[in-house]
């Protein structure tokens, strides 16, 4: 297997393992909530009335977790199908949303909030023709590079931009960061940076470090 293929397989493995763990948490909450409802029902009929609020809460937790599970499986399904075509027309905003959902667990384990930039004004689709798997690998590498250096309690905001004929994605670190320049240097000197440059080059794009946040700019051509 070629090195680039091995990297793709490793990427798919990492993302699917993360989602499997998330799904297990979803199922664990559903199991305990339904178990609590069962426990309450096995008490006396009077107890059923006094525990009505807990019963309703459990039902509400189950519904919330089903929604969470549906979103995870939906994103995972789309992610799995992203390798169906080598080159495809994709909505950049949707891919960003997808990667955010799929990477939540990794961010949570570092106690970092990961979300789309609230300043992102347009939710209009941004259609580009690209290699979907490599694009997601590049986005994940940006997120991972930031997660490896920012302190616990920070935030990562992701936002897509159109710059002339080019499209860009900005991955910005925010929070209690005392020395953004030092963190930017850590990102630049990490083993991941040359890999990220390689992936983005295969997309016909370029990557730039933004030392103000720090953050990473990913520039992509429309085709």
């Amino acid at each position, binding site marked *: 297997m070629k090195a680039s293929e091995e990297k793709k397989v490793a990427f798919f493995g990492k993302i699917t*393992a993360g989602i499997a763990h998330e799904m297990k*948490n979803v199922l664990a909450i559903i199991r305990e909530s339904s178990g609590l409802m069962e426990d*309450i029902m096995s008490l006396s009929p009077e107890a059923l009335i006094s525990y009505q609020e807990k019963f309703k809460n459990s039902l509400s*937790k189950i519904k919330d977790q089903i929604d969470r599970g549906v979103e995870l499986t939906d994103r995972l399904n789309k992610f799995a199908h992203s390798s169906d075509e080598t080159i495809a027309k994709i909505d950049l905003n949707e891919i960003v949303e997808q990667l955010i959902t799929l990477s939540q667990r990794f961010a949570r384990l570092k*106690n970092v909030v990961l979300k789309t930039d609230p300043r992102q004004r347009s939710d209009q689709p941004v259609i580009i023709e690209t290699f979907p798997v490599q694009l997601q690998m590049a986005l994940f590498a940006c997120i991972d590079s930031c997660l490896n250096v920012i302190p616990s309690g920070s935030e990562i905001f992701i936002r897509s931009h159109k710059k002339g004929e080019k499209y860009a994605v900005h991955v910005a670190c925010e929070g209690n960061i005392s020395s953004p320049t030092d963190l930017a240097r850590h990102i630049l000197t990490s083993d991941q940076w040359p890999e990220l440059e390689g992936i983005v080059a295969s997309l016909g794009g370029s990557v730039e470090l933004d030392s103000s946040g720090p953050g990473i700019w990913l520039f992509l051509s429309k085709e």
Partner: protein
Amino acid sequence: MTKPKLLLVDDEEEFVDTLAERLHLRGFQVLTATDGEGALRLIEKELPQVVVLDVMMPGQGGLEVLQQIKTRTPRIPVILLTGHGATADGIEGMRLGAYDYLVKPINIDELIKKMLEAVST
């Protein structure tokens, strides 16, 4: 048999609260924490008889917390919660001094059995 005082530690708040409620209905005195730092503080203050600890947590991971529990209060038995495919963590945890491990989603009767075994040994 007197039900032991136990500490549940898991970053999934809804999971930990609901499981705590179920154990409480079964007569256990249950303490909860959603991170390692909170768990260590509660252990020092409340001295639970058994700790049920998730391996995958933000900040200090479960295995790191386990090592600290075993250094500070080596007599308190710890039961680890792991995910499927992460049994290596459970085995590593037992090497580090955990009493046993269970795979999520757990069966409450199995958890109770393990906790009672752990406090009686």
